[in-house]
């Protein structure tokens, strides 16, 4: 059987891209989500409308992707609309945005997100990070939030060092009680090894699928909270030839974004 070699980052990008639906809208966060939606647009979702907080609506991004950029001419190329931040978030606030995709530093069992700090106090954190950006708006206002992060067990904690953006609070009904829009919340957590969802009743994270060749125990080991596997755990195929070609040759030929831990799996 043929095996394929790839990085954990490449798998994460491909797995997240496979989740998006054509003919829908997605609010795209800074960094990795930008690469994910470009891949999705090229492969699966030509009619996906990508919305960016800086006011670009529905671009057909040019590649290669310019690292670090948001709002440059290549990634807002041939948009439907160029507007401003207040309008971009208005589309999310009024329910027009189906998906939100953002990264995270830490995530808890209810999909609450930390992107602000690690350790110490708010005034004197051990390590300080950029903070919400527009992530809080995305996680609050889009219908289904997809969280994308590297599979490092220490990032999955029972209690976040800081709640930057809301998941399901402390369980079912918490979002609505707090005044967040009804029927919204985290939907999937995509990591570099697996895919998680949330239980309909308890709103706790559960394991939905793992990369082919990995055992669920390997995935769950070291995570800071108990995660129950879904009844029918699925297997996620590794990145295909076309996904890897697009990533390596067109989207990130410099290899800086897609680099990561080397992995292999049966195609």
């Amino acid at each position: 059987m043929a095996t394929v070699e790839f990085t954990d980052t490449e798998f994460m990008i491909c797995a997240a891209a496979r989740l998006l639906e054509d003919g829908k809208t997605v609010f795209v966060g800074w960094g990795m989500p930008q690469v994910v939606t470009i891949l999705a647009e090229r492969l699966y979702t030509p009619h996906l409308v990508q919305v960016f907080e800086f006011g670009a609506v529905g671009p057909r991004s040019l590649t290669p992707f310019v690292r670090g950029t948001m709002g440059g001419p290549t990634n807002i190329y041939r948009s439907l609309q160029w507007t401003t931040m207040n309008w971009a978030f208005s589309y999310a606030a009024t329910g027009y945005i189906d998906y939100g995709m953002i990264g995270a530093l830490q995530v808890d069992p209810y999909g609450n997100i930390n992107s602000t700090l690690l350790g110490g106090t708010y005034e004197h954190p051990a390590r300080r990070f950029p903070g919400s950006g527009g992530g809080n708006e995305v996680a609050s206002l889009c219908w289904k939030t997809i969280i994308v992060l590297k599979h490092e067990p220490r990032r999955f904690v029972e209690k976040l060092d800081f709640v930057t953006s809301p998941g399901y609070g402390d369980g079912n009904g918490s979002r609505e009680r707090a005044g967040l829009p009804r029927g919204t919340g985290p939907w999937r957590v995509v990591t570099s090894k697996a895919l998680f969802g949330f239980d309909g009743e308890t709103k706790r994270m559960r394991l939905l699928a793992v990369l082919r060749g990995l055992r669920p125990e390997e995935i769950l080991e070291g995570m800071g909270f108990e995660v129950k596997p879904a009844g029918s755990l699925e297997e996620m195929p590794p990145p295909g030839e076309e996904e890897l070609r697009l990533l390596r040759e067109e989207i990130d030929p410099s290899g800086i974004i897609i680099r990561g831990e080397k992995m292999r799996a049966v195609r």
Partner: protein
Amino acid sequence: MEVLLEGRAPIRFTHPDDFREWVRTHKRREPVEKLLSAREAVARYVADGDYLAYDFSSLTRGPQALVREIIRQRRRELWVCAEFTLHETALLTGAGCCDRIDVGFLGYGGYIGRAVSEGRVRVCEWTNGSLAVRMLAGARGVPFLPVRNLLATDTLLQSGAKVIRDPFTGDPVCLVPALNPDVFLCHVHQADLFGNARIFGTNLFALEAATAAKKVIVSTEEIIDPGEIRQDPARTTIPYFLVDAVVHLPFGAYPGGVPARYELDLEHIDRVNAIQDDAAMQAYLEEYIYGVPDHETFLERKVGWGRLKALIRRATVREGYH
């Protein structure tokens, strides 16, 4: 009104009537030419202790040359609105210009994170969207606007927002206070000498912030004839009467880019973001800011025409930017 929850951060707040009074007495309605050098504009309109906001981002159409001039003039105790920021906060903090940051996106790279951890600069937590709404409230002349986010987070608790019971729905809703910055810096594609300004492409909150700010400095790639403005009024992003100073600063966004004019200089940006400690920061500031008298000399000696030409050559995407 029932306040259910409130954040603990201090806010810079201006009563809407006080802001109106400022506009009445300080903002000129008659069209006068406002062309100043960067040095004059910063000397006249940026004071120690001011609240500073800017548009767009560090990599795209940011007012980098004006920020460098503020550093060169060693302003102190600025309160900075870090919206969509990668490195301005690091440079301003490293130069000792700013002591408080309202965080939408704090910045990137090790330096600014460390400065916060060590208490060299204080932060207040907001979000990109809520800062934009605060700016809209400032521009609408109202004391606050409600939003349906920030809720259920520590971000709220470290902000200056308040959660109340909404009298219409009976649900909790978050109120964010109006923001009326002392100074708004905006780098644009084109402006006339009176301050009518055009931005091509998207912007964060250029018109909101220009309306909400007490003092507005526009730096521009290109000066155009006022007659051109009236020939295509839909293109006017900011009308002249909001603007206090116009500064002609080609390559004013360097090392960021300006769409359809020049691309960003990723190598230089990486150098800024790689700054970790204070020694490296002071060396950078000395070489690129204190060590040169102005933007023109900076471009000539520290960047060079060859490099600038290469950045122009790379800006091949033109459609839409006119």
